[in-house]
């Protein structure tokens, strides 16, 4: 991967560029001032009467050109003939290809003007010489600024370096997902601290995400193990029975053994059905928004119960009017499971289905039985998957009440197990207030 220049070089480059701008500005200003100062000095030397010019117009200085103009005509005193310029104003002119600075002043006698001129070569040379110095100093200053920028930037970016080191060793410190999420600290500059905080926040988010996925993975694994376990038990009974039938074709108990095989087969089937319903209930469905009439639902559940358990006495309370939003089939299945639980584990002879308004504005569906009930300290546990109560009668999958709990959760409510007025267990399936109406 091609790397960008380091932060340190960028700081050095920035300080070099900044000083370059300053040096150029100062240099240009100095150059302008220098040129002006040198020109003024030259101009001063051109004033007639100055020691350089006075005495005689026959110049004692080779670099001075003097031209006299009077009524009698123009006379060159020394140097080339200079053009006339406005009185008293120094002017730059070109005389025969040489740059001259000239100045015209009244002469020693009235009617005569003197034009004095000097070549600008010396002045320009001096200015150029000083400009070279300034340029040289400027270059040194820029180099120095860049160099010092590099040196000081090393200290300035140290917090970032520490942050980098800390962040690159994070992998080793988060080996155990059970550990709290690691924090990154890099004090020393606001940027590094902000970056460290951002990193810490990101790590915390990743950590939470990882914990969630680990937890769901564990749950799925436990669920699969429990499901295998649940299926193996009836399959063991089935296989043993089938081997008995195979080894003893004329067994007098043949019919009883076959009945056992069928019962074990039904257990496998019921467990598979419940597993399928649980898996489906974990998925959100479009039918969750049906308007379900409470009276309809209880009537359907009662019909299901009478059909599935012909010996059971099923009573439906006069239900309140109203409807809930949710899954008709899901709620129907939940009530059916509550009834199965009453019959199979409560050994109930009758069940009473009812509904009333909940304290929080929701709707509570109730299934009361006259069975053996369930010890109060087991009531939470049996709502879990693959958990059977100690009073459980016939073998079951341990999933029935878990299915009821799942449907309640799906409808924004919960399941409570209580003592029923009819003597057995009451299963209350509460539906959340936002689902009512």
């Amino acid at each position, binding site marked *: 991967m091609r790397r960008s220049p380091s932060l340190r070089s960028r700081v050095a480059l920035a300080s070099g560029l900044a000083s370059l701008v300053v040096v150029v500005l100062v240099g240009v200003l100095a150059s302008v001032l220098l040129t002006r100062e040198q020109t003024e000095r030259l101009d001063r030397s051109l004033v007639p009467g100055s020691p350089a010019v006075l005495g005689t117009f026959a110049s004692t200085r080779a670099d001075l050109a003097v031209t006299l103009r009077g009524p009698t005509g123009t006379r060159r005193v020394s140097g080339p003939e200079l053009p006339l310029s406005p009185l008293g104003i120094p002017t730059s002119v070109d005389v025969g290809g040489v740059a001259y600075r000239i100045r015209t002043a009244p002469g020693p006698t009235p009617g005569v003007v003197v034009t004095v001129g000097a070549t600008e070569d010396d002045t320009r040379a001096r200015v150029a010489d000083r400009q070279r110095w300034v340029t040289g100093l400027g270059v040194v200053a820029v180099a120095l600024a860049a160099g010092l920028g590099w040196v000081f930037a090393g200290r300035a970016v140290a917090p970032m370096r520490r942050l980098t080191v800390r962040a690159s060793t994070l992998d080793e410190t988060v080996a155990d997902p059970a550990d709290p999420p690691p924090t990154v600290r890099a004090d020393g500059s606001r940027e590094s601290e902000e970056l460290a905080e951002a990193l810490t926040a990101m790590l915390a988010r990743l950590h939470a995400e990882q914990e969630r996925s680990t937890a769901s993975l564990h749950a799925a694994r436990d669920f699969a*193990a429990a499901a*295998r*376990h649940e299926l*193996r*038990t*009836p*399959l*063991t*009974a*089935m*296989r*043993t*029975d089938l*081997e*008995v039938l195979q*080894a*003893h074709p004329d*067994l007098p*108990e043949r019919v009883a*053994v076959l009945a*056992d095989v069928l*019962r*074990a087969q039904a*257990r496998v089937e019921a467990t598979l059905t419940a597993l399928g319903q649980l898996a489906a209930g974990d998925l959100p469905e479009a039918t969750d928004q049906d308007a379900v009439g409470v009276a309809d639902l209880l009537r359907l559940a009662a019909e299901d119960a009478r059909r599935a358990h012909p010996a059971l006495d099923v009573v439906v309370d006069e239900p309140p009017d109203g409807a809930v939003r949710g899954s008709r089939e899901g709620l129907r299945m939940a009530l059916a499971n509550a009834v199965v639980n009453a019959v199979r584990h409560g050994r109930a002879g009758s069940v009473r289905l009812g509904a009333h308004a909940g304290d929080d504005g929701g709707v509570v569906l109730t299934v009361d039985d006259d069975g053996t009930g369930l010890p109060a300290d087991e009531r939470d546990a049996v709502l879990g998957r693959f958990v059977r109560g*100690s009073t459980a009668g*016939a*073998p079951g999958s341990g999933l029935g009440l878990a299915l009821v709990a799942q449907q309640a959760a799906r409808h924004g409510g919960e399941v409570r197990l209580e003592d029923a007025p009819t003597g057995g267990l009451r299963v209350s399936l509460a539906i959340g207030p936002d689902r009512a109406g």
Partner: protein
Amino acid sequence: MTDPAAPDLLVVEDDADVRASLERGLRLSGFAVRSAEDGPGALRAVHERVPDAVVLDLGLPGMDGVAVVTALRAMDHDVPVCVLSARDTVDDRVVGLEAGADDYMVKPFALTELVARLRALLRRGARPAPEVDGPAGSGGSSAEVVGTGPLRIDLARRTVHVGERAVDLTKREYELLVVLARNADVVLTRERLLELVWGYDFATDTNVVDVFVGYLRRKLEADGMPRLVHTVRGVGFVLREGG
């Protein structure tokens, strides 16, 4: 129809369907079967009359199968115990056997296989110790002590030492080690070991030998002793000093 000579078997299983099926299947296979549905019930049944063998579900509610095996062995009952597990993770297999069970089967299993193994374990259990044929160990003519290198097995006292350290072994571990020591430097196949130690003289699909060899190694090599029980890949196991 129960034959008075039929071996007395105790089936411990919490699931009523499985318990009923096993009771019937084992009874029809010639055993006198009693059953219990939980750990305390199993210990009560043993207290009443010690059975000839126990078939024990590991996944009992409350006091689990491992606790039952541990309790049985602690009470010095060395009846053969075959545990049944509904889980197929190695850990479960390990715990039941480590506590002193003799074999395990994973549900669902073949009844005929369970019956064959129980009969073999009962035959083996009827003998006091495995007097196995094979070349004598390095103990000389008396053969009261066998062993190789730092390993010393005192057959009369049933004690095992590696160097100065006493090693505590379950009955089945001890019998496996004695067979390996009596046949020191001879490679024994898994089938031969099943026959010599468990009495399984029929083809059976089990890795119980490997599990017990694992236990032996852990106990013998506990304090950094060099390996004595070596795997001969594709053949079996051999007890010898050095590679």
